[in-house]
């Protein structure tokens, strides 16, 4: 039987814009098994990024439950939710968001500052993560000395360095050319297949989505269609 890692139950999320209340997610239910690579697609405003934020513990639903690994993260206090993110989730953003004044190695090591590891061990793990994404030899380079694809690889290394179970990827290939995007997506597939990371990705790009094991289509806050791509599932 497939073990469910993320269970989104009857989630409602609304935003207030002036006097208007916009309903973004309407009684949404999604289940994501452990070790799955799932992609959410849909038009702008469909609620996919909002769902990603809820699963990643960056936001809370107005109603419903977001149960990750058996714990309802929607009821956690801010401090607990922050600590949960540190231990459980790695984020990959479209804009990479690396610290420009830090080297690749230092950027990757950032999440490990929240652990009790010594500096030697922090360095070892950061270099291992860089090795996984193929940038061991760029450890001392600053973001400005790296290409867009390399920057995103560093961001991925930063996301996996604390060995989280869940990777949240928000348009990870949005700013990259096709070839580089394919390389990044292949890397994500590798992390899913070889390191058993559960990956939740939001994308507008059908070719990017095709790398996922399952693609879920959203519109107006509801799940409208889902299908297996046949690729990227490590089960």
């Amino acid at each position, binding site marked *: 039987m497939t073990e469910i890692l993320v269970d989104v139950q009857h989630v409602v999320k609304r935003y207030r814009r002036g006097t208007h209340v916009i309903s973004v997610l309407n009684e949404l239910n999604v289940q994501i098994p452990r070790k799955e690579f799932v992609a959410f697609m849909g038009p702008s405003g469909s609620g996919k990024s909002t769902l990603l934020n809820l699963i990643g513990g960056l936001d809370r639903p107005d109603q419903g439950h977001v149960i990750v690994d058996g714990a309802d993260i929607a009821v956690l206090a801010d401090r607990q939710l922050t600590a*949960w993110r540190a231990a459980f989730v790695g984020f990959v953003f*479209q804009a990479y968001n690396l*610290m420009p004044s830090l080297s690749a190695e230092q950027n990757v090591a950032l999440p490990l500052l929240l652990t009790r590891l010594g500096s030697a061990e922090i360095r070892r793990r950061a270099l291992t993560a860089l090795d996984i994404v193929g940038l061991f030899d760029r450890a001392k380079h600053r973001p400005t000395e790296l290409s867009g694809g390399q920057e995103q690889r560093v961001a991925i290394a930063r996301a996996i360095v604390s060995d989280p179970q869940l990777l949240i990827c928000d348009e990870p290939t949005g700013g990259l050319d096709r070839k580089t995007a394919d390389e990044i997506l292949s890397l994500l597939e590798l992390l899913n297949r070889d390191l058993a990371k559960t990956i939740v990705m939001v994308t507008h790009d059908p070719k990017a989505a095709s790398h996922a094991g399952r693609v879920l289509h959203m519109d107006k806050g509801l799940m409208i269609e889902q299908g297996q791509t046949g690729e990227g599932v490590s089960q």
Partner: protein
Amino acid sequence: MSWFGLVRSGLWRRPGRTLLTTFSVASAFLLIGLFGPVLMVFEGRGETSEGNRLIVQPRHSTTDFLPVNHAMVISKLPGVRDVSYQTWFGGTFRDGENSFARWAVPDSFFPLHPEIIVSPDTLELMATTRTGAIVGRRTAELFGLKVGDRVALVPDIWSNKDMNAWEFDVVGIFDGGNSSVDLTAMYINYAFFDEYRAWGTGLVSYINADVDVGHSAGEIVDRIDSSFANSSDETNTSTERDFALGFAQQLGDIGLMISVILGSVLFTMALVTANTIAHGMHERMAEFAVLRAMGFQRLATQALVAGESLALVLLGAVPGLIGSALLLGLGRDFVPQLAGITIGFPTLAAAAGIVLCIGLLAACHPVLRLKRLKLVDELRKL
């Protein structure tokens, strides 16, 4: 990678801006280091003596003199423990460019001023050598004076009976027990001075009186001044602290001027630092949102901002204070009046307090912004 490294990287994200801010903070602390000790001297001189020491001066003008007999009268007043006196000698030493205080004092002057450190042997020599003089360590070092040297002073107030230059023999060098002691001063033997001066025998500039235990300074001040009321030589008595303050106020309330200058400097520095920190944080709000997404607690990001702010101020404060210490050191070689003005613990403690206050004040706005940071909204801007 460490928390310290993270603070450092934030500081050097825009090196040009950090360097310029550091330079302006360093300039401010240079002024604090230069003027702070001067302000403390103005406010603190006279507080350093043991007990309450009084200075009696002519009532109507500080350039007048008092008859030395007043000292005898004062010494007999109830509540007065010890009495001494001093007369401003003035004179010109060598080329006339060398200005330092010269006082004619009797033996009783030194026991009344224990902060002037001078050996019993030297005091004995001073008492037995009519032309004896004791020179402050700073002046001795500046002019290479040593015991046995003869010092010639051309008179400008006090001509002697031979209408020649005065000559004194250095019998000792004195040190200071605290920073209030003027190590540029020179004390000459009052008995010799009084006998040999061409005019004004028995006239003194000030009378010093020590208040006995169990009596208040105010009570004795009134008692002394009322003793000479309606005489031809009325007195104006004050504590040494009030005397020093009054002297400073005659020069245009220097203390207030220095306070205003330092206040303006601090205010400007606070604005500059706060502006730099606020700009830097505004640009990096998204970075802080990413850190929060990674699992950095809100308090940790706020501590990072406060740490950067404090480090920025400290980065300017240290070279500024070192610069002022060097300038004061250099200045002492050319301006003997700067002797005793040093960057001591009170100035350093005040500087540390200023670093803390300015650093935390500058961090206030970005820290509050981080408190209100909406993670999802900030990440959406990326």
